[in-house]
């Protein structure tokens, strides 16, 4: 499984994006990252799939630090779902889903676009799981609605039976009804394939509804980790700033000590 050991990331410009995060994603769980904009959610996710290398601590897979592993191999063990959908617009739905299996296809086959029939079947099954039918198979991804596109992205992420699916604000560009459906499909699919999900969300309600476990980040630090029911009003105020009205964020000096006690408690 994937584990963070006091992981920190300081960007070249001095921004401390992630600061001493310890986290363990358990097999099969739906783990939601909460936190205001700039709290380091994307950075944390990026460190799992090797887009970003931590400046301190390490991310490890089954006990081996990622830096000692082949990045291509490790990426086959995870799926990724992005906020901006990131499907290939002019490729068919089927093509998009199949492209999730590229590492497992030989180079010449993939260059010719000749995927083995097993993969085709699997792609169809996955599309069915996310409620898309045969009519959609050969439609261009760009002709689908946002919700449908995100479902295609889910299918793509599960092509190689990942251990973990990373989702960075997967529903941020969708309306509430679609968001709920997409998350339901994501959760259902991950259950069936016994994959864990590490998912950052902006919507508190959705997080409460779907998360098995919530990890709340603030300024790069974990300030809460536990079941969604444990998120108290007071904690939320700390995460998102007092009052949730966006007018005033609490001063750093006032927040930091409390945050430290909290991380100590949760660790």
């Amino acid at each position, binding site marked *: 499984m994937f584990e963070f050991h006091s992981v920190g990331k300081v960007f070249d410009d001095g921004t401390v994006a992630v600061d001493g995060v310890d986290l363990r994603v358990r097999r099969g769980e739906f783990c939601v990252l909460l936190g205001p904009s700039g709290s380091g959610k994307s950075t944390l996710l990026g460190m799992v*799939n090797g*887009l970003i290398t931590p400046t301190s601590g390490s991310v490890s897979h089954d006990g081996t630090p990622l830096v000692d592993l082949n*990045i*291509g*191999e*490790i*990426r*086959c063990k995870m*799926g*990724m779902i*992005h906020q*901006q*959908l*990131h*499907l*290939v*617009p*002019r*490729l068919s739905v089927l*093509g998009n889903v199949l*492209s*999730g*299996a*590229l*590492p497992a*296809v030989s*180079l010449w086959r*993939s*260059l010719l*676009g000749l995927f083995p029939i097993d993969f085709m079947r699997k792609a169809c099954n996955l599309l069915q799981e996310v409620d898309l039918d045969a009519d959609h198979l050969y439609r261009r991804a760009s002709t689908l609605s946002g919700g449908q596109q995100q479902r295609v*992205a889910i299918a*793509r*992420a599960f*092509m*190689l039976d990942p251990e973990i699916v990373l989702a960075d604000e997967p529903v941020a560009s969708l309306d509430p009804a679609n968001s709920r459906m997409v998350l339901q499909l994501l959760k259902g699919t991950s259950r069936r394939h016994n994959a864990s999900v590490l998912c950052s969300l902006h919507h508190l309600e959705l997080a409460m509804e779907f998360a098995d476990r919530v990890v709340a980040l603030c300024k790069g630090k974990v300030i809460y980790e536990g079941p969604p029911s444990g998120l108290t009003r007071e904690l939320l105020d700390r995460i998102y700033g007092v009052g949730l009205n966006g007018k005033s964020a609490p001063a750093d000096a006032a927040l930091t000590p409390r945050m430290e006690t909290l991380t100590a408690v949760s660790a």
Partner: protein
Amino acid sequence: MTKPEKFTSRENSGEDTIAETWRLRQPISAKLIVFLLAISVLLGLSAHRSQMDRAFMETLGAVGSLFGWGESRVIKGAANFIGKSFPLVLEERTEVSRISDFDPNDLPMFAYLKIEETREYDTETEAWKIYSSQWLINPYGYLWRVIGKMADTIEIAIWGTILSVSLALPLAFFAAKNYSPSKILYHVARAICSFNRAVPDLISALFFVLMYGFGPIAGILALGFHTSGFLGKFFADEIENADPGPQLALSCTGASRLQVLRFAVLPQVVPQYFAYVQYILERNIRMATVLGIVGAGGIGMELKGRWDMFNFGHVSTILLAILLTVLALEHLTQWLRAKFI
């Protein structure tokens, strides 16, 4: 003018309007005026050197003479050509005595024989001498010849374009910064593209004629190399500008760079590639009609020969054929594009 100053002044006098505190740029600055003046002086000097003043006067004279004021050599020149260009020559005449194995009972289609008499005044005998010669007239012979040459020309353009695309695709891979295997190869590929673009095809055709002799090979090579410079650059730029999102998504799944290129870049760039190739094909057809002038095959060779012999009737047939072909092909490629993309 530093920021703090700006802010304090705003705090001190609350009723300052934004226009007073924020520094707005003048739409027309002194710099711009000086720049425009300098440009116009330079253009003025250059206009005289390139005879733009004479062009203006002569054109004015030409328009005047059309309305009956004075004479114009521009109009005379045009009238001279136009007068000699009509009627268009469509027929082909061959003197029968020059045809070996001539069989009057087996004439080509539509062809007929004609006997022509020419008189010549003999100063010694002081009498007219009459020569009679028999001609085989093929009424559409020349038209067919031009059509055949036009087909050659189009074939030259098509093969030139095929060569160009097959050179440009690998060049583009190396010349795209985000996919080039190494920085050196990137610069080499970009340099090849610039070089190919920099050498005009009319000039490289001259050299290819020296190497491969007269005929279509020289034309195809010249077109192929010259336009591969354009296509290579366009293709590479297109790869560089492709939406990075899908590429990131695919590389996150662990796909190799070539696979990402194939699945996340290629589908995105294909429509533009077709547009570029269509443009290059059209351009090559236009250019192939001219390349023959330096001996690189196609209708240009015929044009040059006829022009040098002042056969303006033939020349205008050729020009009309070129015009019609280019127009027709432009419509054809547009139709193809609309249909398949």
